[in-house]
């Protein structure tokens, strides 16, 4: 097991290097730092001195990958590639356009993100599984059909409309919760509850339909027929046999996203004014703050790889037949 984990971690290194190269190519080769400087400073009447100043303030005035001007190992380290891309491995993210430390921002902003993402994840999972089990229980009846139709209809609505509709109904019309904003501590509950409800409802359509297919697939198997033949009640079959065995495919989709919860939700956070990592990223994209976007790409990739590893480990936990070696 431990040997397996170590091997997987080692396997992740080339992937991280690949991600690093892709982001580096995207941010520095497709467009030179000069282009970025001109973009940030405005198109017209930019003096070469202003560009030079902008670049040296941010450390973009170095050679891209190889520095001939300095001796020894610094030929490699005193470059944009090393300073901006390799440093990410040490979780050194540098500074944003507004000169704040990105690492520090991430540490403070990840808590509001989690306060929103974890309830959405847990409640959503519970609701989806319940819905799907219900539909599987009443399979091939009017109830099941209505459920599927409802799911397809819910899936066809853009997530933006869930947010707009929820804000309008609950906040503007019924004045139950504030439209947007955030507060620390226990006060967070009243700000987070609406985004959580909307996040859960928005996920019901695709989630429960997917789980329903998994349950139905499982219910067609021989062991279920055996269980029924032995005279087990339908609810016992469903909960004790089908649900447990369907957990394996469900876990595949679910465990991967757990680490990514840190990243927060881009859309919900910016709509509801929650100062998490999602809104941080959106602000950075809109302000074209490349340093922040680069850091978030890196963190997101690392978390995804962690998620893949967790998925494999969780298999051994739910399915004793799986042995990692």
């Amino acid at each position: 097991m431990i040997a397996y984990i170590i091997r997987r971690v080692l396997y992740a290194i080339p992937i991280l290097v690949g991600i690093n190269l892709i982001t580096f190519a995207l941010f520095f080769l497709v467009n030179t730092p000069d282009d970025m400087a001109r973009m940030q400073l405005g198109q017209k009447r930019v003096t070469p001195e202003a560009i030079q100043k902008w670049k040296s303030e941010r450390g973009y005035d170095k050679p891209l990958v190889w520095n001939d001007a300095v001796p020894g190992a610094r030929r490699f380290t005193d470059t944009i590639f090393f300073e901006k891309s390799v440093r990410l491995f040490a979780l050194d993210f540098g500074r944003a356009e507004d000169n704040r430390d990105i690492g520090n921002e991430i540490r403070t902003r990840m808590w509001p993100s989690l306060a929103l993402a974890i309830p959405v994840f847990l409640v959503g999972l519970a609701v989806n599984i319940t819905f799907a089990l219900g539909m599987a229980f009443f399979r091939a009846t009017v109830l099941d059909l209505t459920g599927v139709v409802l799911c397809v209809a819910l899936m066809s609505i853009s997530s933006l409309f869930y947010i707009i509709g929820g804000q309008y109904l609950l906040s503007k019309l019924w004045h139950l919760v504030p439209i947007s904003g955030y507060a620390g501590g226990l006060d967070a509950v009243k700000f987070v509850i609406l985004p959580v409800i909307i996040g859960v409802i928005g996920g019901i359509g695709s989630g429960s339909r997917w789980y329903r297919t998994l349950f139905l697939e499982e219910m067609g198997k021989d062991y279920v027929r055996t269980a029924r033949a032995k005279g087990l009640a339908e609810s016992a079959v469903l909960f004790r046999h089908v649900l447990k065995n369907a957990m394996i495919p469900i876990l595949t989709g679910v465990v991967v996203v757990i680490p990514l919860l840190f990243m927060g939700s881009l859309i919900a956070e910016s709509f509801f004014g929650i100062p998490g990592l999602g809104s941080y990223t959106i602000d950075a994209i809109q302000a074209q703050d490349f340093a922040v976007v680069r850091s978030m790409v890196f963190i997101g990739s690392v978390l995804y790889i962690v998620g893949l590893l967790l998925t494999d480990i969780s298999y051994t936990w739910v399915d004793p037949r799986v042995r990692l070696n």
Partner: protein
Amino acid sequence: MPVLLATDALVWLLVLAVAAFTWYSSRRPHLAAPWARVFRSPAAVGSCVVLVAYVLVGLLDSLHFRPALPAKDPKATVAYAVEVRSVLDAALGVLRSRTERTYSAPLATRLYQKESIEQPGGGSVREFPRLRHGGSHLKNEADWGKDIALRVLAGLAGAAAAWALLVLSLRRTAVRRWPHVPWRPACAALALLLAVAGPAILLAQGYHVLGTDKIGQDVLYQALKSIRTSLVIGTLTTLVLLPVGIAAGIAAGYFKGWVDDAIQYVYTTLNSIPGVLLIAASVLMVQVYVDTHPDLFPTVAQRSDFRLLSLCVILGALGWTGLARLLRGEALKLSELEYIQAAHAFGVSHARILGRHILPNVSHIIVIALVMDFSGLVLAEAVLSYVGVGVDPSTTSFGTMINAARLEMAREPMVWWSLAAAFFFMFALVLAANLFADAVRDGFDPRVRV
């Protein structure tokens, strides 16, 4: 003067490809059989009618030209306007040109905001001014209700007549040719479409059916223009994704060994990067490129078209991983089967095995993935435009419509019509696409055959 934008060319290429494929497979029973199964599902037939209506609007909007300017003296060479228009613009003529000053509610005769109006006898009062075009044909505003009711009734009558005509001609031709297709849902969907379109056409002659937006543009016109953007993103993306996904997936599954390792490495790496962020980064880079090379894009239309096309390319370049993974698994399974082994033993070349034995046997996965991706892409466009990395702000799309309307939520009374229009147009498109995709999956997937 006709103008061929890059996306237009690709859209028509796609239409040609689909037509050729339809013709090809209609003559081969084994290719036509799954489609026959698809069109035995009532939901598929109904949603297909809706999709065809959308596609027609989108195709009309993909024929662009630059109108000739009215010549001052007849001998001079004809000058062309800088602005690029489409056949749809020409067909909707009045909708495009009749703009108001600012917001007005659907079917309203007066503006949304109060303005000071000079009285004929001197002095001024603050009231809601009459619209320049909406309801301007009414001599007496009290006739408003009667006028609307008349137009709706006339529209419905026209729709009923058109429906009866269409259904009768269908019965003569299509029903006789394909008797197994459930025509009832098709007729119902057609009736629904016409019942909405008929009154809307008559009302649009005198009013703004869905109101106007902040700069006074007709919302119905914007919604119709958004259709092309959605369809282009939903279809051209798959055009980019398909060759890459097919080649990578089949190669990985068939050749195994280091080819498999390399391809798996590439798609795991691409998959690891959070999608929205990678798209955002790529789009930002495209934007920097466009801004630093203004000479390459002389007109606004070309610039926004390039942005739309690059968005499709980016989405496709990042979206092929899912298809590749599915195809890899299937090719892996197929390459172990006896008939492939037999082909190897006979000395058939790799290219021939791939083309004649593997590709036809994974084609159902490709078709399913194609139709399943469409609705997701349409929804993604709205979100990306909201984030600010979607289409160019000058391109009308559902995303830009929602984005503009979102800021006006707080107004009292609320400006709801832009949102409602975007909602219904998008919902109908995505719902039809989802239903159709489900039917296609059921028809093509050999596992769910009952």
